[in-house]
């Protein structure tokens, strides 16, 4: 057997290792795929071996192959096997393979939970580091939930290496398990002030990532970051902080004001370009956020622009690029300062680097003026001819259109030129911006009346020239034909030779166009033909008439189109032609149908159509479906329900009438949008439908409520907001029937060619707003779930998930190790409530503090102090003392933990090893690291306690009370509640053997009382036998679950402990009686289900019972308060100097409210209590007196 193993090992030695594999692949360049397939076969063989080394080698090879795109997910199980190896070398290979091939949805990951936990808790920091690195790549929601406690523990590790990794890991945990964010955040915040700069930097990194998506939740951290910024010298961290500030300033302009000075100082002083650049960026963000002027406002802008110029002029292309990037941000708010550097930017347009040219293009729209527009566009056109990549050409095209159309063609003085530019642009091949050019053509033709003749001519030419028709099938430029056809049809009176145009539209190639273009063709052929026919009839020009009727056959070709719309329209047109031919004079009537001016329609106008008052969308049109029918049924239903659904969204919008303020805001937003968006005429494509509703046939449709609202009312908006308002009102008064306001009402800024600058038609009364923009936030973005208010104090139920202990179900368990540590932790739990009060208070103050800090607009000369300064200012003296105490305590605690940390690790290791478990009692189930998933639940108490309570800051007070003592044994106990169990308490009993002899066969005998009962196992009979012995001078702990049926009065649990004392000669049976006191406070739970519960309770009149106690005390009130809260399980609701209100409820939900008033001069404490149970209330009152005296 052994021989075979050795032989096997030897053979294995000649297996390919990674180097061999790489070499082999390089030597088999011709048939690489075949070679690799062969290698994978070998790897599969190797993976079947038992030897971990062989497996690791195979997995390493797989990892290499993965890089070349080979799927290795089939080896997932083997990878996990290698990961679980005890050897670091193999573990590392395993984790690397896992981090390359696993991802959050890998199902195998559920097998890894315990293994990773073991590694995280490993004594070797590199094992833990490995686990963290790997985990960061493939953490799933389940892993995040199960391991968050272990990672949290690592946050307090003594090793900065692990702290650093754990901090970064927390971000990944938050993404997968957002519930962890709030409980873990305080700890993360502490890490911002970690002694190790690497850890600090990691914490900053994590907060920055978190704040980037949800900045408003992190505003309260601004003082901390400010301090870091002014004290740190780590450029990496500074960059992150400064970037973070850039994200925060838009939310809080006061912060910006505070930042300007330190940032400008940094700009002046730093030599690091990266830092300089980020500073400039943030200063720009600040300046954008500060709307009102600041004294040195323009100075800062000047400084930024100057520095940026230096960057742009630098020979380093990277700096040039970034300089331009930052410049474009300034341009948005301070165009003037950028315009001064026009020369520089124009120069960059000629740069050989495409990235730089693109950035310069972005800046260009701020550089143009009426004078240089044509010159710049010409230059861009030249670039476009030369450009190679289509992406760059597309960019150029859209930029040309953007700079020309900005601000309603503000800089275009000569529209013939612009039309010819657009026509020129249509010659560009392979662009995706065809629709853009089409929209521009339509927009210009509609808005600029004077240009129509020219535009129509050009469009007729476009229709005639076939290059657009014969272009590549996927070329979008054919969209332009849509515009051209429409323009020619709509403004047919301007056409010189309509017959030619008609013929060119009816060419057979037209059938290759997309359906929607063909449809427009057909419709406009009708319009054009009708107009021409009418004219010919009037003139008696029979020749033309003949020509037109001859077109009929060609129109018939459209009937065969695959597009339904085209088919239908062309059929109608054919019939109409027939009618026209038979009854002369019909052309005139048909012409009337096409009369009337078409105006631009505002984007979203359709959605703004209000719902008529008499339309009740909530009433059933049909009989309501039966209850059982769900939404799926609705879809099966008729159209009415569908329309109802759609309209519902409108109604919501309409019913939320925006306030005046909102309107103002929206208007400004709209103005901005208009400036930036040249394509606001999105509605024009729908013109053909609104055409039918034009004014002259309006009467026929008057009865239909919806059409009434579709009447074209031109809200001619000039840039003057006031005028806009007047128009709006006027329109309303005149019942919205006004004809469009004529052009001469416009601002006659450009006398030659007036541009209709209205936003377009909207239903009367409707406003164009941004608010109804669809939300484009990615639903899958995990950051959505992380939008959590971090300033609210933690609720009780907000805990990191803790593996539940089995004790409670089994009702009997013994703890063999670490009872001391546990004791501490338990005290911890109790004192947590106390801590919470403090926390709550601190949180409330925190917001104010941030406010104060921001208000205090001191300059940077006194940089660091502000934080601490104001803390002391805000808190009363007493409070600050209290805080200081807390701080000290927490520090002590911190130290404590650190020293404990190692021992804990060691112990946890040990406890898992089999040797140790032999010493333990036999029925205690231990897990052995990873292995099977069935052992998923780790009943290892250390995890619970070590982790769940780590958040607390205060040092725990031991709450073990003495139960009984004789010369052999001493027993102490502690009672604790089980969350969500209203009738159980757990009694932890801690037995110490004080003598020099072995104590064994310990049996607890506790007779049940009317309201108390001990939960026992079946077969326990009268007494509960403890499954352990007590060697001399040792302590053990055990737990009982006590069932309580009445929680309103103090109770006693009497019992006897019998045991055998082993002497040298004989064994003696002895017994020890004990009495366990279950005071009222043991049944109390001190948490507030919600904030106002106290006032609500007091108002409700539920609390009929009252007590009043008085006591003379010389202690400090805060100390008293602390003591009462802590001992009686009550929550501090509110404290105003020497008055405080407390609240708590019993396990069964009886309320107790206390009001404490303390008179300093007489050292007199008055306790007034209200409650809904008299015995409980007086019991508590009694207890408080007992505690205090």
């Amino acid at each position, binding site marked *: 057997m052994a021989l075979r193993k050795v032989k096997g090992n030897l053979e294995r030695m000649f297996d390919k290792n990674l180097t061999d594999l790489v070499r082999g692949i390089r030597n088999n360049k011709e048939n690489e795929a075949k070679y690799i397939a062969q290698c994978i076969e070998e790897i599969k063989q190797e993976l079947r071996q038992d030897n971990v080394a062989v497996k690791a080698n195979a997995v390493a090879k797989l990892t290499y192959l993965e890089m070349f795109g080979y799927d290795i997910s089939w080896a997932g199980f083997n990878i996990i096997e290698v990961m679980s190896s005890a050897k670091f070398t193999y573990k590392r290979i395993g984790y690397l393979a896992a981090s390359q091939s696993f991802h959050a949805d890998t199902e195998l990951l559920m097998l890894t939970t315990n293994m990773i936990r073991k590694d995280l808790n490993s004594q070797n920091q590199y094992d833990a580091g490995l686990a963290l690195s790997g985990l960061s790549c493939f953490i799933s929601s389940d892993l995040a939930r199960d391991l968050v406690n272990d990672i949290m523990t690592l946050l307090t590790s003594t090793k900065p290496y692990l702290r650093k990794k754990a901090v*970064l890991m927390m971000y990944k945990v938050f993404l997968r398990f957002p519930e962890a964010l709030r409980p873990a955040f305080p700890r993360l915040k502490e890490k911002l002030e970690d002694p190790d700069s690497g850890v600090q930097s990691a914490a900053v990194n994590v907060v920055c990532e978190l704040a980037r998506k949800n900045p408003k939740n992190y505003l309260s951290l601004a003082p901390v970051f400010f301090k870091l910024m002014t004290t740190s010298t780590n450029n990496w961290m500074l960059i992150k902080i400064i970037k973070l500030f850039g994200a925060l300033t838009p939310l809080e302009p006061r912060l910006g004001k505070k930042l300007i000075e330190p940032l400008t100082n940094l700009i002046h002083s730093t030599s690091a370009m990266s830092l300089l*650049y980020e500073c400039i960026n943030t200063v720009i963000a600040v300046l954008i956020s500060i709307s009102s002027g600041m004294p040195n406002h323009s100075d800062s802008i000047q400084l930024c622009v100057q520095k940026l110029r230096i960057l742009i002029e630098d020979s380093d292309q990277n700096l040039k690029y970034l300089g331009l990037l930052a410049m474009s941000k300034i341009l948005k708010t301070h165009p003037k300062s950028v315009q001064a550097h026009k020369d520089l930017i124009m120069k960059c347009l000629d740069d050989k680097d495409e*990235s730089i040219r693109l950035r310069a293009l972005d800046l260009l729209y701020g550089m143009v003026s009426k004078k240089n527009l044509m010159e710049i566009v010409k230059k861009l056109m030249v670039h476009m001819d030369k450009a190679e990549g289509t992406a760059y050409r597309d960019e150029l095209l859209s930029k040309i259109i953007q700079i020309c159309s900005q601000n309603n063609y503000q800089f275009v003085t000569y529209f013939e030129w612009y039309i010819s530019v657009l026509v020129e642009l249509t010659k560009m091949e392979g662009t995706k911006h065809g629709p853009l050019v089409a929209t521009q053509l339509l927009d210009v033709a509609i808005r600029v009346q004077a240009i129509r003749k020219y535009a129509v001519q050009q469009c007729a030419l476009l229709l005639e020239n076939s290059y657009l028709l014969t272009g590549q099938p996927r070329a979008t430029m054919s969209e332009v034909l849509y515009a051209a056809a429409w323009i020619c049809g709509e403004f047919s009176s301007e056409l010189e030779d309509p017959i030619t145009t008609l013929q060119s539209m009816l060419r057979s190639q037209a059938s290759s166009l997309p359906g929607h273009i063909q449809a427009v063709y057909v419709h406009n052929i009708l319009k054009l033909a009708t107009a021409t026919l009418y004219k010919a009839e009037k003139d008696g020009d029979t020749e033309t008439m003949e020509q037109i009727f001859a077109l009929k056959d060609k129109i018939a070709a459209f009937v065969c189109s695959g597009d339904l719309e085209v088919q239908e329209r062309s059929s109608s047109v054919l019939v109409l032609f027939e009618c026209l031919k038979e009854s002369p004079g019909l052309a005139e009537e048909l012409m009337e149908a096409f009369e009337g001016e078409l105006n631009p329609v505002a984007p979203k106008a359709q959605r703004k159509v209000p719902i008529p008052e008499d339309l009740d969308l909530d009433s059933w049109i049909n009989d309501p479906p039966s209850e059982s029918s769900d939404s799926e049924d609705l879809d099966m239903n008729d159209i009415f329900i569908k329309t109802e659904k759609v309209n519902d969204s409108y109604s919501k919008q309409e019913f939320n009438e925006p306030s005046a303020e909102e309107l103002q805001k929206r208007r400004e937003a709209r103005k901005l949008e208009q400036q930036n968006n040249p394509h606001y005429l999105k509605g024009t494509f729908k013109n053909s439908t609104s055409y039918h509703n034009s004014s002259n046939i309006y009467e026929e449709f008057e009865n239909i409520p919806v059409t009434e609202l579709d009447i074209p009312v031109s809200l001619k908006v000039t840039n003057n907001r006031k005028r806009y308002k007047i128009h709006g009102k006027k329109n309303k008064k005149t019942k919205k029937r006004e004809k469009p306001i004529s052009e001469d009402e416009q601002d006659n800024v450009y006398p030659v060619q007036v541009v209709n600058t209205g936003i377009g038609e909207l239903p009367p009364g409707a406003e164009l707003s941004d608010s109804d923009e669809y939300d484009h936030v990615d639903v899958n973005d995990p950051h959505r779930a992380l939008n959590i208010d971090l300033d609210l104090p933690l609720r009780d139920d907000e805990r990191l998930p803790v593996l539940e202990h089995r004790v409670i179900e089994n009702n009997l368990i013994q703890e063999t190790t670490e009872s001391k540590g546990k004791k501490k932790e338990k005290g911890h739990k109790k004192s947590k409530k106390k801590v919470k009060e403090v926390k709550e208070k601190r949180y409330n103050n925190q917001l104010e503090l941030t406010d104060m800090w921001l208000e205090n607009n001191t300059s940077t000369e006194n940089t660091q102090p502000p934080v601490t300064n104001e803390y002391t200012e805000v808190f009363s003296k007493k409070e600050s003392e209290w805080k200081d105490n807390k701080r000290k305590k927490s520090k002590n605690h911190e130290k404590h933990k650190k020293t404990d940390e190692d021992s804990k690790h060691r112990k946890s290791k040990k406890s898992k090893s089999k040797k140790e478990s032999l010493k333990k009692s036999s029925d205690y189930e231990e897990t052995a690291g990873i292995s099977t998933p069935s052992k998923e639940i780790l009943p290892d108490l250390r995890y619970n306690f070590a982790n769940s309570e780590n958040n607390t800051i205060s040092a725990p007070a031991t709450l073990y009370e003495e139960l009984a003592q004789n010369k052999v044994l001493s027993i102490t106990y502690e009672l604790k509640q089980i969350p969500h169990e209203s009738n159980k308490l757990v009694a932890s009993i801690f037995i110490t053997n004080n003598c020099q002899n072995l104590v064994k066969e310990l049996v607890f005998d506790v007779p049940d009382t009317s309201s108390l009962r001990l939960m026992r196992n079946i077969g326990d009979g009268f007494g509960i036998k403890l499954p352990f012995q007590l060697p001399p001078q040792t302590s053990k702990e055990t737990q009982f679950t006590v069932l309580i049926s009445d929680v309103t009065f103090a109770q006693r649990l009497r019992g006897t402990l019998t045991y055998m004392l082993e002497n040298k000669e004989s064994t003696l049976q002895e017994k020890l009686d004990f009495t366990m006191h279950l005071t009222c406070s043991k049944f109390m739970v001190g948490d507030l289900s919600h904030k106002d519960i106290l006032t609500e309770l007091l108002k409700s009149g539920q609390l009929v019972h009252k007590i009043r106690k008085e006591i003379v005390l010389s202690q400090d009130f805060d100390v008293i308060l602390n003591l009462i809260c802590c001992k009686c399980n009550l929550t501090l609701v509110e404290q105003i100097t020497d008055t405080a209100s407390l609240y708590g409820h019993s396990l069964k939900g009886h309320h107790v409210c206390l009001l404490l008033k303390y008179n300093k001069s007489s050292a007199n404490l008055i306790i007034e209590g209200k409650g809904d149970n008299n015995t409980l209330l007086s019991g508590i009152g009694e207890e408080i007196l007992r505690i205090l005296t």
Partner: protein
Amino acid sequence: MIKAILVFNNHGKPRLSKFYQYFNEDMQQQIIKETFQLVSKRDDNVCNFLEGGSLIGGSDYKLIYRHYATLFFVFCVDSSESELGILDLIQVFVETLDKCFENVCELDLIFHVDKVHYILNELVMGGMVLETNMTEILTRIEDQNKLEKQEAGITAAPARAVSAVKNMNIPQQIKEMKLPDLPQAIKDLKF
């Protein structure tokens, strides 16, 4: 956040790929290919930032790269990273490689891609910058290598002997020497 770190040579052969966001293998290869096409056609004297990778990220993402001799080091990052910072990070990465491999060249990356991963793991974790201080990084790598050596101990001796024998495959080694992309020594790397 760093979304991906790619290293490939002048012919687009991947030498290291690390994705911090999940893509399946095919997608990964496509991304590498696209990135190579974008990066390789750029002159050496243009800027090191590149937008327009369509497969990875979208508008918020940038490619930041450096070209050393035969290798491209490309980082795909979002807007929360500082552009110049990432350039420095690439520099730190390459310098660390240089220290660890003593005059790093492409062959080192080819034959020790696992080690390169381990080194990268000390710089970047889960897409976030972990450490930028080179001495600290080197200590960590040293420590872990020591650990590995300890574990190997005597048992590894036969394996080492075998691999030495394998390495004595002289004709093949000569072939190796002739490979066209045998890179220049580190002195050609421009720092």
